[in-house]
């Protein structure tokens, strides 16, 4: 992942301009742009889905425009990966055309330049105007993916049931071209998405959000993740980020290939082990083994955490139940970022103590974690995510999510390293295992 705040955020006009440059100057067909957007989104959703023990289904709500087209591409790729996908579309019956000729989309934009491109590459211009979204809808249908029309094949009142039964809901309703309050049935669908309790991914931007101003003139999707393209959108920075573009969780393309080795300048850094113990700490309550009764301070271990100091920045790795003691023992009053390796208790239970840091820092803390960790942290620390909790003593923080791609923290490149933490099963293996 590339942390998009480092790129000048796009306005509606700039986003259009970039699309047009890609198509006109470079001759990248619109349907290829749509494919890239949908494929990348599908990858992100697939990796989020891996975190569910027994994935049930993904529901995609696809609007009439290109945003809906992205949704059909996502549906196709998820379907190919064996995911149980429900697709609910708007305007799916209005199109009858199902063009499949290669290159026929070239005419869509109707400009001379694109005709020239078509001629140059020997592509046949279509007889009629086609839309990339229609093309992708038709492909999905030919693949046997059932796309139900909202309002006719599926009554609005039956939709919440599907949304609640889905692990993930994909909001591909309205894109960045839309201005003003969402009309029926979009407004009702947005409300249903927000009430679903499922993990919500918005494509390009949360439906209902004004891309330039961040205003929400009507209903707006409260996205857990926003998968946006090329750059963050200006409105993301303006809007109530705790509510709509939920704490900075938008992601975009990584320009450098994944796995690119760190080749930046050498940075001096210092790592302090704040805690080196296992989940129970050492000594263990009630234990009289030689380690637990040792006088050597090196045998007294608090829960695992480390402080990395680099170029004047302080990054804390994990925030377990001993976080408070660790901050006190090391005289830490300010952290530039807290990175979470995973959401097990011994790595996150100190989050409530951010409340005290908020006072000394006079600002919210910045947490970095995976989407799965965020999902669990939100369940445990639900009160910290409530927009109307009225509790002044709850921790104040922003969450930035990452997946498996490099990202930056305060200008410092970080490469996430996925590792496997096998689920603890205390079978009678004779190995004398204990919960950790």
């Amino acid at each position, binding site marked *: 992942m590339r942390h998009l705040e480092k790129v000048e955020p796009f306005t509606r006009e700039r986003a259009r301009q970039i699309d047009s440059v890609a198509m006109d100057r470079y001759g990248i067909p619109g349907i290829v742009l749509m494919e890239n957007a949908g494929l990348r989104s599908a990858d992100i959703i697939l990796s989020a889905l891996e*975190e569910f023990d027994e994935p049930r289904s993904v529901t995609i709500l696809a609007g009439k425009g290109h945003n809906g087209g992205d949704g059909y591409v996502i549906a196709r790729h998820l379907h190919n990966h064996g995911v149980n996908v429900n697709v609910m579309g708007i305007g799916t019956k209005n199109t009858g055309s199902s063009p499949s000729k290669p290159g026929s989309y070239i005419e869509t934009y109707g400009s001379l330049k694109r005709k020239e491109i078509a001629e140059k590459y020997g592509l046949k211009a279509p007889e009629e105007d086609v839309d990339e979204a229609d093309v992708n809808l038709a492909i999905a249908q030919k693949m046997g993916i059932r796309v139900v029309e909202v309002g006719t094949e599926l009554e609005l009142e039956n939709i919440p049931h599907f949304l609640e039964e889905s692990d993930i809901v994909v909001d591909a309703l309205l894109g960045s071209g839309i201005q003003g309050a969402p009309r029926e049935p979009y407004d009702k669908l947005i409300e249903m998405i927000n009430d679903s309790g499922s993990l919500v991914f918005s494509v390009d931007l949360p439906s209902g959000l004004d891309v330039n101003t961040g205003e929400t003139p009507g209903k707006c999707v409260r996205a857990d993740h926003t998968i946006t393209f090329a750059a963050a959108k200006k409105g993301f920075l303006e809007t109530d980020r705790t509510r709509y573009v939920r704490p900075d969780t938008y992601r975009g393309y990584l320009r450098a290939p994944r*796995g690119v*080795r*760190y080749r*930046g300048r*050498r*940075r*001096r*850094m*210092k*790592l*302090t*082990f704040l805690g*080196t*113990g*296992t989940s129970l700490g*050492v*000594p263990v309550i009630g*234990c009289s083994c030689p*380690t*637990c009764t*040792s006088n*050597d*301070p*090196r*045998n*007294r*271990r*608090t829960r*695992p955490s*480390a402080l990395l100091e*680099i170029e004047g920045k302080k*990054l804390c790795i*994990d925030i377990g139940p001993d976080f408070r003691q660790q901050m006190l*023992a*090391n005289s830490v009053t300010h952290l530039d970022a807290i990175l979470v*390796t*995973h959401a*097990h208790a011994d*790595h996150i239970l100190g989050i409530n103590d951010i409340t005290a840091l908020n006072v000394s820092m006079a600002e919210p803390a910045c947490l970095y974690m*995976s989407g*799965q960790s965020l999902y669990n942290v939100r369940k445990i620390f639900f009160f910290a995510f409530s927009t109307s909790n009225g509790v002044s003593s709850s921790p104040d923080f922003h969450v930035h999510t990452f997946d498996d791609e490099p990202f930056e923290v305060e200008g*410092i*490149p*970080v*490469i*996430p*390293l*996925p*590792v*496997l*933490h*096998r*689920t*603890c099963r205390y079978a009678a*293996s004779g*190995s*004398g295992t*204990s919960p*950790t």
Partner: protein
Amino acid sequence: MSVRGFRFGNLAYVTDAKEIPATSIELLKGVDVLVLNSLKYNRSHPAHLNVVEACELIERIGPGQAYLTHIGHDIHHERVSKLLPENVRLAYDGLEVSA
């Protein structure tokens, strides 16, 4: 449960690993300082590496210096330290390392 370790330039911090996929091993190569988890000495655990397993991985990755963390009470600092290879040490609360 998927866990992420982190690499910051020439230093990497990995905890709560039982296995490290080959792709992550590749990303770890070339670090000067590697932090890795070890729960017990040589008894196996379903979710965590032990010291023996961690040392095997350290040998494959080849950091200048490795530190073990997430340590349980099976590991007595002084006793186990004597058994470790030259470039592997047990971390302890308050230890500072430069990279």
